[in-house]
């Protein structure tokens, strides 16, 4: 049975890839949208990768970690796991039928698709 998280949105930390492809940028924009919608707090993946002590300790204080990667390379997931963090909810943009390319004409509907998908996963885990 999936464990429910008794957390508030302030305790939910959002990390995303921001890689040099359309899906990397969609992942980033979806994370921004989730933060704007109050689903959680957008945290700095680069700070984790850079071993910035303040970022790492702040992340330890989170109750639910969510991550969005652009593609199966999975840089956000690997960066968090490298430090020893467990990810509670995770998605790759390409899993949602959005094909990776290296052009940056991003469709707002694709950003919405990813943010909506992740928001649903978070709501389910929170039991709301």
């Amino acid at each position: 049975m999936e464990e429910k998280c008794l957390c508030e949105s302030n305790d939910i930390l959002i990390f995303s890839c921001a890689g040099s492809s359309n899906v990397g940028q969609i992942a980033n924009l979806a994370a921004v949208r989730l933060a704007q919608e109050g689903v959680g707090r957008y945290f700095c993946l680069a700070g984790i990768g850079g071993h910035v002590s303040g970022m790492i300790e702040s992340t330890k204080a989170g109750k639910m970690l969510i991550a969005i990667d652009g593609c199966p390379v999975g840089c956000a997931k690997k960066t968090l796991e490298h430090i020893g963090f467990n990810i509670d909810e995770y998605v790759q943009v390409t899993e949602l039928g959005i094909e990776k390319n290296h052009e940056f004409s991003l469709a707002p509907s694709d950003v919405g698709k990813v943010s909506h998908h992740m928001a649903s996963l978070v709501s389910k885990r929170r039991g709301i």
Partner: protein
Amino acid sequence: MKIEVLGMGCANCNKLYQNVLEAVKMSGKEVEVAKVEDIKKIMGYGVLSTPALVIDGVVKVAGKVPKPEEINGWIK
């Protein structure tokens, strides 16, 4: 050694400051203790959850209030 307590005056920030003072007393060592309440300085440490405890520039804990005994363990 310098210990900084990061926070903008919340109850937990004050509790952490008191715990630091108690830990320093316990250690018997000479330690400079400072409160950092300026949000720009706090963010400069990459801290997004307060209170936080910084020892010689390294964030040891954020978003929690460690007990004096634990803090004492970090004082060299």
